[in-house]
């Protein structure tokens, strides 16, 4: 466990989602932030280290929701991804739409979920030159992840399609459409 400032700790975790859930259940509001990452959980709050270390992490993940995202597979990078992966465009679309993904963690922008479970054949690097503007709702892949851009922003992920969904609504009871632990399926239109 590593110090992250005078009020924070960075915990290495085999399953950041399970560890984050256990920490929330154990300490509730005593922890100001519980932030899962790729292989860590960051906590901020006034819980002493020995109490954090004593938390038992269940092997069973809490059941997330399943969210279906309708997608038009019309992304500008489809042909390039097909070339990089030596697949046809139809196969790229089929593999991307067939899988069920898990939101591993959120970051980069409000409502941006890093979705894991991408078929290994679709693992491609980011673009060498990021785009200055990626439209809101763009469905994209990079490395082991897929995701949906919650709002227009610069970005280097490869764009496969577009989804007409609101990923982050600050006025809503649950502002993020996809939260860490949720399952996501892409439904081709």
């Amino acid at each position, binding site marked *: *466990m*590593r*110090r*992250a*400032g*005078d*009020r*924070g700790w*960075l*915990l*290495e*975790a085999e399953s950041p989602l399970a*560890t*984050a859930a256990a920490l929330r259940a154990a300490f509730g509001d005593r922890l*100001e*932030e*519980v*932030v*899962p*990452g*790729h*292989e*860590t*959980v*960051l906590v*901020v709050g006034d819980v002493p*280290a020995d109490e*954090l*270390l004593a*938390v038992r992490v269940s092997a069973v993940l809490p059941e997330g929701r399943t969210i279906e995202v309708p997608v038009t597979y019309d992304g500008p990078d489809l042909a390039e991804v097909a070339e990089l992966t030596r697949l046809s465009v139809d196969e790229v679309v089929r593999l991307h739409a067939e899988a069920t993904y898990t939101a591993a*963690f*959120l*970051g*980069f*922008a*409000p*409502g*941006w979920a*890093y979705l894991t479970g991408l078929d290994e054949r679709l693992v491609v690097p980011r673009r060498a030159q990021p785009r200055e503007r990626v439209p809101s709702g763009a469905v994209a892949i990079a490395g082991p992840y897929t995701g949906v851009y919650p*709002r227009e922003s610069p970005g280097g992920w490869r764009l496969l399609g577009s989804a007409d969904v609101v990923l*982050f609504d*600050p*006025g809503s009871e649950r*502002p*993020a459409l996809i*939260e*860490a632990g949720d399952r996501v399926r892409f439904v081709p239109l």
Partner: protein
Amino acid sequence: MIEVVDPGLLTTVQDRGRPGLAHLGVPPSGAADSRALALGNALVGNPPDAAVLEVTLVGPRLRFDLPTLVALTGACEPQVLETRELEPVACDGGARLYVAVRGGVEVAPVLGSRSTDLLTGLGPPPLRAGDVLAVGPEPMRPAPRAEATRAPVERVLRVIPGPREDWFTPGALGLLCEAEWRVTPTRFDGPELVWARSDELRSEGLVTGALQVPSAGRPILLLNDHPTTGGYPVIAVVHSDDLPHAGQLRPGDTVRFTAGCRSGRTGQP
């Protein structure tokens, strides 16, 4: 009511921000100098969560529809005045000045806060000429008529090593604390803090005050409007008590870091 005649260089609405939402990708945001925010609100009798204006370097020209009790704090001698017009004030000895008005700046809260978040666009946009901002209702308690003195801006910031000090060559942490660092708009200039590794760090949660070091070796300090996760190693984190000082640093200032606190890792979770 506040009429913005001239917004100054960059003026935003700030309160204590929106902590607790980092797991949704929402930055903490809020006033960069939390002590100046608290003092300003106290001087006009506001509750501590009232919103104020945060001014960067050069102040705005404001008009009020009624004589209004206003406190100026942060990068100036603290002062309280009752006025219908505020002339631009230049920051002195710091980067950010705070304008607290009795009743608070009343814009619609977003996720529980009225703060402008420059990174994500949450909250009200920065002030523009012609904007009209509402002022909240008169607080219950009277303004205290207190005298306040100014706390000097500290140029030595305490840091806690880690969480990724072992990503760097053994001398890097020592170098961080020995060198004099020059503030630029984007980073600290000084000697290179050399990575001991060539792989990429997987994205992990970031705290306010983190000194993130890209491979070029110069640290970037994350103030309140920071991304919630990132993949550059954090060599050390500025102590939360010293963050108000960090929020007052200006380009061209020099600063030192001191590792005054306990370091290191403890067992395994």
